[in-house]
């Protein structure tokens, strides 16, 4: 089956800034694809190119089998978009904005609109300029989700939502996934992506640095092990792929690369394991491996 989104060596520059620098992204039919990266990595630029709002300088992009710039209008009938920073018309109410955007896409499921407004606890009769950031975000989410779009492009959709609303949002996305729709979910909130995404792509400085299912990516990375053994563990320095080893009496703690996990656990079992905890790498750890050098260099994880 052809991919829903496919880009090949996509490049977009703004003056001297290379916002996209040879981006290869592939999103398959029916998956929720997490699109992770820090601020300024090129997430929004990618989504805007996929929407035909920006024109790529070079490279190829295909969305739902069409060309995002040339076929913009026909593609937009089949997809829905939630921008990261929602601006509403000051003198239109939220309800009017939802209806307008949905109708301009080609139709509105009124029952679903009302249900979503209810679930997100949104007051649709307030004027655009009186909404808080979170409520503006809800307006855009309802307008996008009240459609029958095959593909949803969500650019940090829950920025500004409170935790309760985030749970509602996750529920709605799971329903959409069950209906077989495809979602591209950009975020720097790792926990959210972890809960929803089947596959993820990590973008850094306009390139995809890693892509795959969560399972695959964890396989490539380290698992943290903590064990209490009957006899003190020795000989750990003989093993390959161990990091951050700490041994104190009967307690041992280390991180091990995926392909060396088996050997490490075998080794431990020779000392009489009394308790063993292991946890897979969190996305924070995945991200830190990709941005760790920057963190060390600049003291923060963001780049302007």
């Amino acid at each position, binding site marked *: 089956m052809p991919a829903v989104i496919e880009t090949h060596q996509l490049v977009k520059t703004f003056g001297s800034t290379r916002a996209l620098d040879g981006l290869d992204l592939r999103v398959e039919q029916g998956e929720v694809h997490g699109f992770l990266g820090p601020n300024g990595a090129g997430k929004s630029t990618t989504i805007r190119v996929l929407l035909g709002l920006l024109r790529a300088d070079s490279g190829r992009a295909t969305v739902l089998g069409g060309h995002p710039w040339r076929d913009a209008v026909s593609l937009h009938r089949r997809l829905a978009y939630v921008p990261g920073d929602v601006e509403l018309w000051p003198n239109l109410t939220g309800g009017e904005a939802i209806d307008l*955007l949905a109708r*301009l896409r080609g139709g509105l499921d009124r029952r679903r609109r009302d249900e979503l407004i209810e679930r997100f606890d949104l007051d649709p009769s307030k004027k655009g300029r009186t909404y808080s950031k979170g409520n503006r975000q809800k307006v*855009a989410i309802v307008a996008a989700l009240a459609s029958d779009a095959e593909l949803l492009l969500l650019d940090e959709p829950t920025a500004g939502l409170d935790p309760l609303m985030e749970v509602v949002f996750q529920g709605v996305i799971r329903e959409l996934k069950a209906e077989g729709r495809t979602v591209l979910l950009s975020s720097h909130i790792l926990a959210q992506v972890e809960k929803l995404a089947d596959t993820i792509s990590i973008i850094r400085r306009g390139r995809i640095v890693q892509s795959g299912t969560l399972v695959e990516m964890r396989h490539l990375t380290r698992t943290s092990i903590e064990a209490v053994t009957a006899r003190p563990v020795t000989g750990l320095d003989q093993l390959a792929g161990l990091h951050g080893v700490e041994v104190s009496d009967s307690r041992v703690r280390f991180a091990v690369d995926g392909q060396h996990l088996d050997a490490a656990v075998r080794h431990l079992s020779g000392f009489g394991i009394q308790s063993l905890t292991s946890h897979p790498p969190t996305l924070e750890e995945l991200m830190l491996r990709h941005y760790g050098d920057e963190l060390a260099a600049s003291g923060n994880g963001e780049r302007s």
Partner: protein
Amino acid sequence: MTATTATPAAPARPARPAAGGGTLTGTGTLVRFALRRDRVKLPAWLLVLTVLVFYYAAALPEVLGDNVQAFGRFMVGPVGALLGGPGYGSDAVTVEIAIVGVYGLYFLIAAALMNILLVARHTRVEEQTGRSELVRASVVGRHAPLTAALVVAAGANVLLALLIGTAMAVSFPHPGQGFLFGASVGALGLVFAGVAAVTAQVSEYSRAASGIAGAVLGAAYVVRAAGDMLGGEAHGSALSWFSPLAWSQQTRPYVDGRWWPLLLSVAAAAGAAAVGYALSARRDVGAGLVAARRGRAAAAAWLSSPLAYAFRLHRASLLWWAAALVVAGVAYGALTQPIVDAFADAGTSELIAVLGGDVSQLLDGYLGAMVLFDALLVSVFVVLGGHAVRAEESRGRAEPVLATAVSRWAWLGGHLAVLAAGAVGLLLVVGVVMGAASAASVGEAGYVADLVVAHLAYAPAVLVLLGVAALLAGVAPRAVGLAWVAFVYGGFIGFFGPLMGPPQWVFNLSPYEHVARVPLEDLTWPPLLVLTAVAAGLVAAGLAGFRRRDLGTT
């Protein structure tokens, strides 16, 4: 070496809440902050206005040369009263009298706009964007932001008065009179700083706040113009004195200068500022006096196409413009006969030259000038509409719409179609209203049709302005403000060109000059068709440019 007594300092006690006078805490810092933010804008305003004085002082003697008498008749005629003022010194025009009496009004308007924008920028815009919340959360008194804005405005007006005064004083004899003119400009600036301080409290929406202050300026213009036109050769009438613009103009620099009318300006400015303070004490940060109303929970059924969306966004502005033009049309139409009577004895050859006919055509000449005036007002609507379209894009509101099944062509085309239809509609409305009012005033029903035709004849010229705005919005969105250049050029050449006698090509560059001035002249179709084609070409180029470029992103 210090002279303190040796007792060790007591541990610092927590500062008590400031008692009394605390509402102004932090004003000094905010003033410096405002000056830092305005370090380009404010000097630019002052510099441009000062340079303009030198420009007129250098350029006018050439132009005036042989035309002194014509200039004098123009100043005291109805069109001069409409566009210039009460016409003091018309019997012995000098360059400085021409600057003060004819172009002085535009210095006054510029000063008013400078103050409206300045006060709005440092009060309501700050609140609307939420930045003042940050400021007010620190050690800043309740009245400090408004006070800081007014202090900066007052300083700017004093500086403006001194700069213009100095420019006049070094260019012409009687330096005291030069400074009187400068002071009259600064004083009007103060009045509108006060007006803006009031309007900033009323609406929680900055565009509405400056819009209301702009409407006050418009009303001041209408009242002054009507009063001056009714005054005939008497240099204004009692009606004029209801407008702050008249207080500045009634100082009569270089004729028999007097300072006392400026006391009215200062008193009005102080009174308005006091009202502003009183109102601001009655409301919350970020809120207006007029609470935002709730609206409908669902969109009306018709709001479902790009065209309907564009109409919905421009609807409020269209209605306000229609209301303003109806008022102006009624006022100027109803004054037709009284104004003609006021000038009935003034039928000298120079006045006739200015109005382009014989004395019996004084009436038609007046009406023709008024029609051009209306066409320029509708052009302002069009150019502001271009700015609004640009703002849709730059504020990020175009993005979600263009992410739906709306093409670039439909999005910009919808806006332009609404603006074009709106402009033609406004011309029709003001034509009907002014026609009816002047027909009633003169007692000749034929003027209704004449004035409707006269207004609609300007539609192609106004659409050329729309084309310029469309081209800029489509191709060079940051430069959309350049459309004002076309507007100012057209207005200046339209009214002052005949006095200056430039070569014909200078006239030909203005779209408004290709329109026959009905009822004085007969309607000619070919230029209108050419103008329409030019407008269509500009719009097409703008649309093509917009389809090709990246959308501006926030």
